[in-house]
């Protein structure tokens, strides 16, 4: 059952991802991105990471992609003025390099040695919350500074006149 679900959601995620990078219009990409994100959230659930799955749906699908869609509609580039994709040498090389990278990673992941420890639900509210507010408290607090900086930066950049 688990294997079936993994293959199903993995396939959806990969297909969605491929669609994201191949669509001409960004709006289509954004919608496929939501698909991929949901599939990944489902994969998180498979690994008992319920909390992270929820955050994935709420923050990514809910906030980030909505932001993308919002921006796409805001600037509203006409269809005919969208950049025309052309296969330059560098692009082809880049795709090849990415392919090599995937192959390398695949080979490496086969060699991944994993102890047969007690499989633990690391993505639940309890474990993540306990870890965040004990061992990773400082990192967590600094994250808030990062978000603040991002907010201020975004306002400063996007505003016409400050």
């Amino acid at each position, binding site marked *: 059952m688990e294997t079936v679900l993994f293959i199903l959601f993995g396939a959806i995620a990969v297909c969605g991802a491929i669609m994201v990078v191949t669509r001409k219009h960004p709006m289509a990409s954004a919608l496929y991105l939501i698909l991929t994100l949901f599939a*990944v959230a489902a994969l998180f659930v498979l690994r008992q990471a319920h909390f992270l799955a929820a955050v994935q749906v709420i923050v990514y699908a809910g906030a980030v992609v909505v932001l993308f869609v919002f921006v796409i509609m805001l600037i509203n580039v006409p269809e005919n003025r969208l950049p025309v994709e052309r296969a330059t040498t560098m692009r082809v090389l880049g795709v090849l390099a*990415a392919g090599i990278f995937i192959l390398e990673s695949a080979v490496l992941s086969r060699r991944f040695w994993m102890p047969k420890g007690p499989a633990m639900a690391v993505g639940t509210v309890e474990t993540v919350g306990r870890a965040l507010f004990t061992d990773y408290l400082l990192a967590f607090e600094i994250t808030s500074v990062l978000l603040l900086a*991002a907010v201020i930066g975004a306002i400063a950049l996007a505003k016409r006149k400050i």
Partner: protein
Amino acid sequence: MIAPSAYLLLSAVLFGIGVVGVVARKNVLIILMSVELMLNGVNVAFVAAGSYLGDAAGGVFAFMVMTVAAAEAAVGLALLIALYRLKETIDITELKVLKW
């Protein structure tokens, strides 16, 4: 029971597709979405490794990555808007004033 390497392979594939998007596309919006894809691919690896190793750090790292992704999207899109106002384009090859 699915082998951990299956998750890592999936992670690598998602990351690689994201990389292709970043390298091969001209549309800044799609590039930004490809970056999100890459981050998601990494998150898959983190969550899987954390759960197989029984270490909460995996979950926490995935959480941090999501935070960074949100911040990155916000700033990146703000930059995009600013640039679009300036250049009237979202073609990344047009944005090459960053040279000597």
